[in-house]
């Protein structure tokens, strides 16, 4: 198992490395990065100074090596807009995104999984059909539209919840999060619900399909032939069978959430990395964009590896050395 994780990590590092080349080429080799920083009326001498100051007059491969060396030092350059270290800006905002994504994930699972299990067990009942219609609806609604809807209903009309921003942060057991304050809870509710809609639909479909498949499986018939109670069959035999696919998908969904949070964060002014990347793209703040991309890719890889490992632990049929 350790070997497997190691191999995957190495593959991941290779991937990040490749990503860095792509990012570098695109950011520094395409277009004129200076155009953002200087106005058209700047005299050439000033432009030249800026160029040499940023090392942009050196040959490309030299620039890349400098770039790489800086990366390994943790130096992703400085934001064109704020002048702060790019990576620092990303890391600073990551906890907010993590908090939002985790909350959304929890909501999605708490609602989606039980609903899906019930729908799968009794697909033709009221719950079953409503659940499948509901999940189809959720997938079709674009997240920015649902955000608008939520804001209209809860913030503007009902005046119940604020429209944006993150709440106050409190520290419990060394972890600081806005979930621990009342103000924080009020503010995280709408964005978290909005973000949870898509994964919720995924969970409903996944668990209901899984349960439906399992119910008709012959080992369920054998279990009934043994005289087991419905309760035991449902809770152990059926549920256990859907855990592996749910776990694998959870990992992937969580990774997607980190990416999809860009919309929700933008609309609700949630100070996370998603909000940052959008602003950076709009202002062509390239160092921050690179920092965000490298960071996201790394996180993504780690999550995928973790999901695979958890899956292997839960399902004894999977052996990580490759033989199934």
């Amino acid at each position, binding site marked *: 198992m350790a070997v497997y994780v190691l191999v995957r990590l190495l593959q991941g590092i290779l991937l990040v490395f490749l990503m860095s080349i792509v990012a570098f080429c695109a950011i520094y080799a395409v277009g004129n990065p200076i155009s953002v920083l200087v106005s058209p009326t700047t005299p050439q001498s000033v432009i030249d100074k800026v160029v040499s100051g940023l090392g942009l007059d050196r040959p490309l491969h030299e620039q890349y090596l400098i770039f790489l060396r800086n990366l390994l030092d943790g130096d992703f350059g400085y934001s064109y807009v704020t002048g702060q270290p790019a990576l620092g800006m990303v890391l600073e905002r990551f906890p907010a995104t993590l908090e939002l994504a985790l909350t959304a994930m929890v909501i999605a699972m708490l609602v989606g999984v039980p609903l899906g299990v019930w729908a799968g067990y009794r697909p033709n009942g009221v719950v079953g059909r409503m659940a499948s219609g509901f999940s189809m609806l959720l997938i079709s609604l674009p997240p920015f539209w649902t955000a608008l809807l939520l804001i209209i209903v809860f913030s503007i009309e009902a005046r119940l919840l604020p429209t944006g921003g993150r709440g106050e942060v409190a520290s419990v057991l060394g972890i600081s999060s806005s979930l621990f304050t009342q103000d924080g809870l009020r503010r995280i509710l709408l964005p978290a619900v909005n973000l949870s809609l898509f994964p919720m639909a995924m969970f409903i479909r996944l668990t209901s399909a899984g349960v439906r498949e399992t119910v008709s*499986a*012959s*080992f369920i*018939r*054998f*279990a*009934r*032939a*043994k*005289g*087991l*109670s419905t309760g*035991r069959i449902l809770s*152990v*035999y059926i549920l*256990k*069978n859907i855990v*592996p696919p749910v776990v694998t998908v959870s990992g992937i969904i969580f990774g997607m959430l980190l990416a999809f949070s860009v919309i929700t964060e933008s609309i609700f002014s949630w100070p996370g990395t998603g909000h940052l990347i959008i602003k950076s793209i709009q202002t062509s703040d390239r160092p921050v964009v690179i920092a965000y991309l490298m960071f996201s890719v790394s996180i993504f890889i780690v999550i995928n590896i973790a999901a695979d490992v958890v899956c292997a632990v*839960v*399902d*004894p*049929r999977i052996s990580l050395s490759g033989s199934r």
Partner: protein
Amino acid sequence: MTDGNDQVLSVRSLSTEFDGEDGALRVVDDVAFSVGRGEILGIVGESGSGKSVTGYSIMGLVDPPGRVASGDVVLEGRRLDLTDDAAMRKVRGNAISMIFQDPMTSLHPLLTIGDQMIDAILAHRKMPKREARSLAVEALRKVGIPSPEVRVRSYPHQLSGGMRQRVAIAIASLNQPALIIADEPTTGLDVTIQAQILHEIQMLVADRGMAVIWITHDMAVVGQLADRVAVMYAGRIVEEGPTQAILDSPAHPYTIGLLGSLLGRNRGKAELPQIPGSIDNAHRLTGCRFAPRCAHARAECEARPPMVEVSPGHHSACILATEQADG
């Protein structure tokens, strides 16, 4: 039929229907048979004969859109209500057990063998888990699984096909059932494994006097194993009697056709004889359901032929048998 005192299971007027687009289909139509202590009854038929559904019906395992329409089933002197799920659950895995085809799909892939066996015990008897576990180990040992204390912790995919089926047999016999229903348990298994399984079953019967219903399409297996045979076609029993009597002097055109197509009897022939036609739409007929494929079909076959005794204990539902019995 078997002697009343020794009867483990008596089935009369069993009918099971499936609701479909064109109305209800009688998949099991007025079936009657009985099994005695230490007796192996073979139920033989092709796909669509209703043999498996008969087994499920007795277990109360028929799911919608199917339902047991009628049935007078007596197990060890007690009447069973096949539609009362709560009552049937006490019987399933307890007084009557069932084993299925393909043990790989019968056992839950993510639970250990031990857990699945303990489940079967604890569903019907209260005892500490430890005790249940040792019972499980003993049962594994009885069916010839080596190192049962270790195997008890294995997962199904770690065992071979033959061993898995033995485990299934062990599970089935855990609660000392009076009757075991085996639904095609050796189909798809190696001949050698098949022989082992047959042997295990025979041991169970000899040791504990268990009754067995062996459902299969394979006449050859039935010939080796069963004491009595019931031949089913399109939901009805067309012939039943002692195995030897049926093999030596079959009294129904369908049985004759089945036996005629066995490899063993056709050595040296260029072509295997087949029963012409197919079973399609036979379930809708109210008269003799085999008539469309029968060389001897007559006008009288439009009425359902009654079961007639051809020789002691040997019955056939055919107009020819009726004539033979009368004349």
